[in-house]
């Protein structure tokens, strides 16, 4: 059974915002099929009644107090940005109205 089809790869790439060329898609159909096929091993195990691990540490309620701490100077915030106008991070015009 082919575990993964090209359509699956394309759907997942869409969710992950990746563009893949044809060769890479083909390659991933094979690789992901193999790996996911291997992962199906887990179905051998009966996990009824087993709680999923949320955290290996049994910690709860780690908080900070509601106190304002200094923010970054704007120059430092924008320092690594590919495109800015000195105030905003600039991205290609967003057409979709939110």
């Amino acid at each position, binding site marked *: 059974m082919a575990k993964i089809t090209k359509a699956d790869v394309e759907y997942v790439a869409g969710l992950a915002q990746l*563009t893949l060329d044809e060769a890479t898609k083909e390659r991933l159909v094979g690789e992901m099929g193999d*790996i996911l096929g*291997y992962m199906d091993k*887990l179905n051998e*195990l009966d*996990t009824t009644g087993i709680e999923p691990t949320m955290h290996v540490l049994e*910690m709860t309620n780690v908080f900070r107090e509601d106190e304002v701490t200094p923010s970054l100077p704007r120059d430092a915030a924008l320092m690594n940005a590919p495109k800015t106008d000195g105030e905003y991070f600039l991205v290609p015009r967003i057409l979709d109205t939110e």
Partner: protein
Amino acid sequence: MSNSWYEKTALEIRDAVRAKKVSALEVTDSCLKRIEEVDGKLLAFIDVWADAARKQAQAVDAKIAAGKDPGPLAGVPIGVKDVLCTKEGTTTCCSKILKGYRSPFDATVIERLAEAGAVFPGKLNMDEFAMGSSTENSSIQRTRNPWNLDCVPGGSSGGSAAAVAGHECAVALGSDTGGSIRQPAACCGCVGIKPTYGRVSRYGLVAFASSLDQIGPFTKDVTDCALVMNTIFGRDPKDSTSADIPVPDFTKALTPAVKGLRLGLPKEYYTDALGAEMRDKIQAAIKVLESLGAEIVEVSLPHTDYAIATYYIICTAEASANLARFDGVRYGYRAPGVANVDEMYRKTKSEAYGHEVRRRIMLGTYVLSSGYYDAYYLKAQKVRSLIRRDFMDAFKQCDVIVTPTSPTPAFKIGEKTADPLEMYLSDIYTISVNLAGIPGLSMPCGLTASGLPAGLQIMAKPFDEETLLRVAYTYEQKRGFEMGMPAALRG
């Protein structure tokens, strides 16, 4: 002697510096000169901070001159895996997507080490975003194994392992998500520890898989390991998952005494998958400990066979979200000439990520996607509970668990790049430790016939790094050999 400070351990350096037998600057210069000499062969460093390191060393010397305490790691050169945020230089995770990225802050471990008097000679190579077991996935360069330049140093912290084994720095920091400290430490013949999850703050560690990642040191010996742990362990209010558990003075655990300690040998680890030569090395090491009064107990970790599948579901799922932020908006690479936002994301990510990273993002996205979450992600988190329970059960019968670190010594560059599953299977002995959140240490237990280091792994109960260190220290004291200078760097 004064020319070979680079060969010394952290303890020797800090004692000499504190006693004014040598200046921190001299040590730093020795280390920088060594890097200049051998890094052309090893390709461990991706960035050397000669000026900054000298300034840090001078600051340590100035403190000493002023009669102030220069800290417990005074003048110790510590290399930094490029997965840790540093204000100095760039922080790129050896990915094209973060080329040139300058972090506005230092990771908590860097702050603590700086406070302790450490000197940072530069950044070390790694697999892109710590995804890999050979450092071949770096977008920058391929690091070599100091014992055989045709072999990989292991990964993902291959640069860190090679730098310490090659005596380019006394200590290096790495990160371990599924073995990324222990496996390269084994491949390169140095000591490396993955602490209990929550022991070391992850603040400033660029996340790969948040529930598995831990920072840890590579050192030349167990004593140095304890020394660094003293500084970097402990609760950090910036990391909600950092444990509020007191940090003992780990150097006090360094006593050669294992009498009555029970060493658990999980039967699932000693199978045919383990090469005969490796098995012999491990057994010889166990004999040493047994001869000193340790008790050998066979234990069982029945879900071992499911660890790799479990691990690759969880780590890819977390990674798919952790890496989503690299989108070309606030920092990092943005593909040129994009017309709209979707194109910006797609072209940026597709052009900048290497294939291993893309594959893991794809896998992680898949296992979380609607219709597959229960079958993969949720199932894996349940199996993770079983794996953790295995360890807790085993630790009822033993104090530490002793295993090989990896089934084979370092492999040849290019040998496993074609088959990802084959590469994933090489993490078989290290992965469960991360899933269970327990501490694990790798240390050399000899050389194979082909002259490559073999690694011994010791695991302990959560937060019981002291027992782990005691066993490791005892073995190191009594094993009867020195690793010495790696073959490829002799003469």
